[in-house]
């Protein structure tokens, strides 16, 4: 039976190679995928498996060595600055390290104003812009009045990541790629961030793609899970299938690596 849901991102034989000759690394190796609209997708793999590289290709931030990427069923065209801009109104990202994600010379206001501009709101009266920014900030439990004229690095890591979500709130993209959005922050803010992302998903109706090395997190949030090993997807399917009935030894290892609170820890594998 053919899947009736619309595709949002599709890849055929997507490959990324860095360098050439003897220094060549194949970061992403001939992967096929079909991300459906409305699903929560997770890409799980250990460090160096090529998750970030794949994410950057999906975002159009780096070129694709081989293969094709389709956006909403159409071949993706990002050949000019104007087309890329249009593409980026529909696909957005949250990066791993909040401290490296902001230009340290720009104030928080300008980060948020850029998003309003991107949505075509450049000419709106300033009061309305402030209203929009205030709304976005309060969505992530921040007070815009306290943030205005401050720099992002003056915030804590969790607050910076929340500001990143406020950005997405303003941009309302179709797809959000979240590259380990919680790996740099403490467990407590982690749950908050994830909850905010999930409620944002309901609010703007976007397709989130979580990239993570934490298979527990993937199980907690996602419908479909892709397991990535050394640049290849080794297993994919619904979260229940993949995580409760793993077929591949790599997947089993990833699952076993998650420390269980009620069992004694085997520190030799950590």
């Amino acid at each position, binding site marked *: 039976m053919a899947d009736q849901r619309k595709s949002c991102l599709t890849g055929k034989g997507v490959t990324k190679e860095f360098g050439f000759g003897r220094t060549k690394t194949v970061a992403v190796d001939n992967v096929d995928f079909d991300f459906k609209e409305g699903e929560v997708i997770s890409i799980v793999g250990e460090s160096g498996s090529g998750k970030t590289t794949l994410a950057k290709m999906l975002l159009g*931030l780096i070129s694709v060595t081989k293969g094709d990427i389709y956006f909403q069923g159409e071949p993706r065209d990002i050949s000019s600055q104007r087309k890329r*801009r249009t593409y980026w109104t529909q696909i957005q990202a949250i990066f791993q390290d909040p401290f490296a994600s902001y230009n*340290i010379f720009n104030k928080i206001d300008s980060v948020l104003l850029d998003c309003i501009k*991107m949505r075509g709101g450049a000419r709106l009266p300033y009061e309305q812009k402030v209203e929009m920014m205030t709304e976005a900030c309060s969505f992530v439990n921040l007070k815009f009045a306290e943030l205005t004229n401050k720099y992002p690095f003056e915030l804590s890591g969790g607050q910076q990541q929340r500001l990143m979500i406020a950005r997405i709130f303003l941009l309302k993209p179709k797809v959000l790629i979240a590259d380990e959005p919680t790996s740099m922050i403490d467990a407590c803010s982690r749950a908050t961030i994830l909850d905010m992302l999930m409620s944002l998903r309901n609010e703007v109706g976007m397709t989130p793609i979580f990239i993570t090395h934490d298979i527990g997190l993937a199980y907690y949030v996602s419908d479909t899970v892709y397991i990535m090993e050394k640049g290849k997807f080794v297993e994919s399917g619904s979260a229940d299938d993949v995580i409760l009935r793993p077929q591949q030894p790599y997947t089993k290892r990833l699952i076993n690596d998650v420390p269980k609170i009620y069992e004694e820890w085997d520190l030799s594998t950590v």
Partner: protein
Amino acid sequence: MKYTIQQIFQSGKFITGFSIFMTILLIVIIYPLVIPDPPLKIIAQGTFFEPGIYVNVYDSINTPFYTLNLDEAADRRIANRLGDEDRQAIKEWLVGNGMPEAEIDPANTEQLLDQWFNNFDPTVRLPGMTNADRNYYIRLNNNIQGLLNTSGAVIAELDEETAVLTEKATVPQSAYVNVNDVPNVRVLPLGTDNFGRDVLTELVRATGVSLQIGLVAGSIATLIGLVLGLVSGYIGGFVDDTIMFVTNLFTVIPSFVLLILISFSISQEQRGATTIAVVIGFTSWVWTARAVRSQVISLRNRDHVNLSKLSGHSITHIIVRDILPYIASYVVMALILQISSGILAEAGLSILGLGPKTTDVPTLGLMMNWAMIYQAHILGKWWAYFPIIITIALIAFSMNLMNTGLDQVFNPALRD
């Protein structure tokens, strides 16, 4: 930003370098206001006048005298006029006349003259003495007697028609003039150079010109290097390959050789200070370009740049707003280094005789060149080259200090 500037001014090295540099700059600006002489004007007839205060003799005579009876005056006068050779001759005569050598001290004028007057006898003929020697001693004796003369000098006026000298006044030996009364006194703290120009005035102007050359050359080099580095680093691909090809060409040929060749091919008449500065600038951007490029390459894949792309910003916006500020401190440091090496490059060129033309303005390099051609170093005329070396060294030193200071602020890893 404000915080960084505060930090910069807390760095001891930077402040030291900055103060030295500012002092030099202030002197360059203020000196011409106080002494507005043209720096290349030849004022002295003759070469290499020693540093000192030059009092006009004619004016001194026409200035009211004051009588000061000072005990040492006569001794000083004699001591000053009795040359080393004469003292040595006196000593030889006395020794030849049978005085123990240990008792004679040629430096002690009073004792020496005492010994001379008590012992000298023109009729005595010492063993081994020629007639010429004897005459020399008689003449020396007369000279010394003349020195001891206490009558004043006569000032006479020449009658144009009859050629008769009429005595106008006598200047007694105890006559003094107050320097403040003499209308023409010229202080030459660094003497004059081989052409008879005031070295200090020339040096101040030369420092100013050299700083300008450094600034122009440094700005051009930094600007070219910055733009090429940014474009080549950020855009990459074919553009990068092309720019790096040119850069590598420039790297393989040492820039100073290139500089010499270019300067050589411009005729002396067309080589103004600005031309030289521009030529220096155009041959020394290579390292800035390389350094900026590698910085940009490490920056262009950072997440804040990615975020800026995702916010729909154009390449220009990203280069100017997301890359440039991150390397700004680095560029400032490169600029300072380029300015100081521009000054040195001009000096090097001028010493080789390929500097700016010599009739316009002095530069530090040209002054070194003149001192060298006229052999100031061999003749021991230190004032014609030593102050210039010191100035060049001070400029380079202060700029390097500022640079190290900045480096410590911008790279916390270097702080001690």
